[in-house]
């Protein structure tokens, strides 16, 4: 009988601060909706019942989501860089594993939004010649991300050819 195999998780977890970052970012985007609904309910008396109902629905869905999704995502999101490949796992309900060999990497960048900066986090984007989109490692400590980019850039610059 042939050996059963499965994908092992990538070795590194993302920074634990990522959980709070995801919670904050979701709380902000959902909070805006909730506040708009609340203000409208306060101002428009005839529609108050329906607006409050909508607000209730938003809160009932958003509050568990804001708490559960980041914790779940933190258990899923993992990354690993070996000498030969970049390997990531992302998502929460829908999950995605991505593998790109070092020899096919074209560019490596870091990006930091204002909120990520507040949590001292960075995301690393690894681009290959495929039009199907880059590999992103989100929620890394920014110093770690800078080191990682430096290492990846060194390796990829040593590559010959156009990585197609």
């Amino acid at each position: 009988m042939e050996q059963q195999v499965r994908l092992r998780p990538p070795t590194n977890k993302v920074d634990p601060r990522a959980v709070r970052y995801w919670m904050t970012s979701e709380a902000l985007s959902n909070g805006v909706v909730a506040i708009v609904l609340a203000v409208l309910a306060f101002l428009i008396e005839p529609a108050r019942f329906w607006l409050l109902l909508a607000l209730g629905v938003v809160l009932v869905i958003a509050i568990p989501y804001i708490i559960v999704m980041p914790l779940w995502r933190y258990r899923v999101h993992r990354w690993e860089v070996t000498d030969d490949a970049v390997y990531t796992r992302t998502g929460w309900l829908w999950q995605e594993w991505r593998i790109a060999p070092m020899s096919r990497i074209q560019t490596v960048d870091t990006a930091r939004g204002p909120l990520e900066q507040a949590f001292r986090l960075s995301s690393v984007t690894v681009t290959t010649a495929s039009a199907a989109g880059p590999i992103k490692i989100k929620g890394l400590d920014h110093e770690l991300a800078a080191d990682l980019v430096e290492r990846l850039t060194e390796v990829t610059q040593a590559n010959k050819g156009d990585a197609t």
Partner: protein
Amino acid sequence: MTTLEEGWRQLHPRTVVVTVLTVAGILAGVAIPIIIGVLDDGDAILPILLIAIAGIVVVSAVAAFVDTMRYRHTTYRVTDERIELRYSWVLHKRRSVPRERVRTVDLTANPLQRVFGLAKVKIGTGQQTRDSGSHLTLDPVDKAVAEELRRLLLHREAAPSVEQTPGELAKLDWRWIRFAPISVTTPILGAAAFGAIMQVSEWFNAQGAVFRLVRYLFEDLSAVGLVGALVVIGVVVGIVGSLGLFVEMWFRYRLTREDGNLLMTRGLLNTRSLTLEQRRLRGVELVEGLGVRMLGAARVDVVATGMSQKSDDDKTDPKTVLPAAPFEVARRVATEVLGSPAATATSLVAHPRAARARRLRWGLFAVAVPVGVLAVLGWLLTTVLLHLAWILAVVLTPVAVLLALEAYRNLGHGLASDHLVTRHGVGARRTVALLRTGVIGWTITRSPFQRRAGLMTIHATTAANKGAYPVYDIDEVDGLRFADEAVPGLLTPFLEPVTPRGEDGLVCDGVDPEGNVFQLRQRDAL
């Protein structure tokens, strides 16, 4: 005229004539409906006509001047190492492409350019990026010069590594035109025709007249009959349109091999001559649309790098190298283009039953949603909707089930010596044979439902076309083995053996040939 330095050449001067005629033609086309639109009964037509003509003359003169200056200040040259293009009027531009990186030399000519013996040459490096080093365009040069440039730039001394049949791979067989109307273009063109009539009649302020005419023509018909008649007319227009489109696109179609590169020429009014360097080829895709497949035909697309960006002015898809043709022809062309029969000769493995169950669930869900909505509305409002709901359920359920079974039957994957093959599709069935060395990574996705059913979707990422080719709903263990075998070594370090979990959370990491467990460890808390 400026004197040219050594080796520098100019574009063709007749470009000015072509430009003026094009601009004047477009303006006249725009002016006529406007004139008719603004004209009320009793207005004199002459002054308006004179204004229009004067406008056309002035704008054409400006276009002539601009194009003359562009012509006079644009020069190009081909040296041993590079192709260079210079433009120096008002702003200075210089583009240069190293000759060794040239992958495509595409020639196109619209009807006017053809009358004047001109062609546009687009020289590309086959890179996905749009940065300035990736391509340059000579618009236009003499047709003979264009042909000569193509031959010069794509000629390679190195012998092609794959065994290749030289000469002609395929040429147009007019019997293929019967497949043209059985495609999505027919309904699209039919609908577009109605849209165009409404739009044009609005320009002419004549929409009311169009409606009156329709009512007059179909006076005796009921509302249902009228709709039926209009659908029939739409279908007929669509069929005529798709036949016309086929003739325009595929007239004098020829697919040949020249110096190891693929060369495709085609077109009635707009002629195109497209090249594809063998080095850029990553695979072929056999596309069998539903109607075309029932007639035993298939289309062949190439999977090649540098294809994802459509050129701005060529609306036709350059990746199709054979229009829908009898399967035997498609099989032969796919084999010769790829240099291997992988796309049609590989035996494909069917996917697990769970994949069929998923498709059946999707199909039934797609039926249940509209039926459910109608039923609820019917229960609340009127029994007519209830009847509609059960009729819809009776009619759509078998269709959904058939499509689901069909989608499941179309799933398959397999490995050939140099290629991996994946097939999927409901309606159009797509079979891709992808060069295994052209796979530049894997993306594996799993939904909660797939995790429960033990399935996964594996995308082979590649630098060609849309970037990734999926193997849908493959068994998770088979999928990983398939990917691991297709590109040896890439996935291996990330795989771990799964063995039955023992008691006390102990797992064994391996079993020797006698079946003795030789390593035990505590199972990690996941």
